[in-house]
């Protein structure tokens, strides 16, 4: 994917660009808000990474300006450590996701991939049926089948699987799961998510030869037919 990174801190910018390049993406850095806004309006990108604190115009102004001119390229807002209340401001301004510095490159890439996937129209909310390998999820009937066998899931387990299915092939982090499956933005002190995943694994993978849920070391989880 083509990513525009609008970040005035050159060290952070080069860290992001390097990580994206290594992951096989095409990243373009912009060191000022002005340059970033110019590039975002003149060139075509799949997703934007916008630092919240930029010398004028700041990150939120850039996003607002783009949205006002009907540019709907998904944007992820970056903010400094501890500025918790900026999240809502960032999302209200038209940002699609939010990440606090310092962050792991894996978290950023996972979120960017989820954003581009969402906007690319694959696995849209209107889909009623999701499938991966021999795993099928019927969103209307709320039923799950693997290899034709019905699997009984709790409502939350179903939502967890649904989110993993929608992002199949991509890495989803624990915070992404908390935000999208539980709809809470908070910092769990213990590995609550891991326990939920291991429960889901029990039901989805245990009795089958090929596991679908894989743990990605240092990042999160991914749902795919072959190991990452």
């Amino acid at each position, binding site marked *: 994917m083509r990513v525009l990174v609008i970040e005035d801190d050159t060290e952070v910018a080069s860290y992001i660009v390097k990580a994206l390049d290594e992951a096989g993406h095409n990243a373009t850095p912009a060191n000022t808000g002005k340059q970033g806004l110019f590039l975002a309006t003149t060139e075509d990108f799949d997703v934007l990474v916008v630092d919240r604190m930029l010398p004028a115009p700041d990150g939120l102004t850039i996003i607002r300006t783009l949205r006002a001119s009907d540019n709907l390229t998904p944007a992820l807002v970056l903010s400094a*450590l501890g500025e*918790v*209340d900026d999240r*809502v401001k960032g999302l209200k301004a038209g940002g699609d996701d939010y990440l606090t510095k310092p962050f792991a490159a894996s978290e950023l890439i996972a979120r960017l991939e989820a954003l581009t996937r969402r906007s690319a129209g694959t696995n849209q909310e209107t889909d009623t049926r999701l499938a991966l390998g021999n795993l099928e999820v019927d969103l209307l009937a709320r039923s799950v089948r693997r290899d034709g066998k019905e699997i009984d899931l709790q409502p939350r387990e179903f939502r967890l699987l649904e989110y993993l299915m929608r992002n199949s092939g991509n890495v989803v982090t624990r915070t992404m799961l908390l935000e999208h499956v*539980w709809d809470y933005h*908070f910092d769990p002190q213990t590995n609550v998510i891991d326990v*939920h995943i291991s429960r889901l694994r029990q039901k989805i993978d245990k009795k089958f030869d090929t596991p679908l849920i894989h743990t990605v070391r240092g990042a999160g989880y991914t749902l795919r037919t072959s190991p990452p």
Partner: protein
Amino acid sequence: MNFPPLLRSASFRLTVIYIFLFGGSAAVLLGFLYWAIAGTLSDQVDAAIDADIKGLAEQYKLHGAPGIAAIIAKRVQNDPGERTVYLLTDALRRPVVGNLSKWPTVDPDTRGWIEFELHDRSSSDGEVYLARARSFVLQGGLNLLVGREVRVLVRTRDLVINAVIWGIAITGALALAGGVAMSRSTTRRIEAINQTSREISEGALDRRIPTRGTDDEFDQLALQLNEMLDRNQSLMEGLRHVSDNIAHDLRTPLTRLRQTLEEMEESCLSDTEQEHAVDRAILEADGLLSIFNALLRISQIEAGGRRENFGKVDLTALLTDVAELYEPVAEEKFLKLAVYCDTTTEIDGDRDLLFQAIANLVDNAIKYSPPDGTVTLHSVDRTVSVSDTGPGIPNEEREDVFRRFHRLEVARSTPGSGLGLSLVEAVAHLHDGCVRLEDNHPGLKATIDLRQ
């Protein structure tokens, strides 16, 4: 100008002003007294002399010069103390009869009054008295002088003058002494405050301003200042406690991080070992970052800057969600997680923060409960409580656990930053509520009370 401290003091300056004010008043008062007393006395003398003259004038009219001479002679004879002064002279002022040897040399004023010195004729030491007399000329050229010796008047006058001078002097002296004493006591009490302030500035933070127990304005000032100092000290100690703990709590993970990095520098590591070392280093760094994040988060919440995310929050739904999230973790530890919600309670609050606060309490409850225990979540009337069947917290430590980085001795071995309850309290305060810790017999019952 460099006066001694006493003279520089504001209260001493005030005293000096009062000295002049009171001294002046005393002088005016005593002056009036003198004027009244002296005036009355001399009026009495003048009246007596005038009456005498009137009598003599009548005698002269009746009996002529010889008659008046006889009366004067008789009066002089009857007055051996010589309180009265009479002198009848011829036209050339040669004495005819009377107790004065010669006509006084002083000129009379317009009304004929003269004051002159009189030498004591009865005593030999030649004491000088003052006499007051009136002279006039009789028909036939005779001169008559009638007067009174005014020793008493002069003495009284002197007495009053003395009294006035002494009065003013004593008033001044007393005011000065009182003023000095008063300024000294004021200066001393202010000096006590200064002294204490100096000692505190120099680092003795536990010093307090002494009070006298009189509850006067100085005591009240001292009590007020002491209260402020107490508050400052406790804040500073809290701050020091936090920074000490940051230093202490971060030293261990930082040391581990350093060791891991050192290990990685050695080239003899295999690829898997290298990978594990990197993982460990990242894990340590993440742990450190999450501590900083939690600290910043708490101080941000405490600063009250997060109210903009407030909205309608259903406490019951929130509680159910927390329970649902933690249920598998509880089950792994063979704990029962029970939820009791009386009614749907909607409050105005920050959904994410309230979730975080309740999650922290549940996290603690699960962490410290022994297997086969029960963690109970209960919401009723804008309060949320989380009870466990763990070891609980001793009564005397219940205040301390809200302090940042505070960890109970028994909890040292379990993972945790000691920031969980600090955050719960900060969130409760942000919602104008409070956190209570009670005994659950056995275990701990933590309640977030948002009834306000």
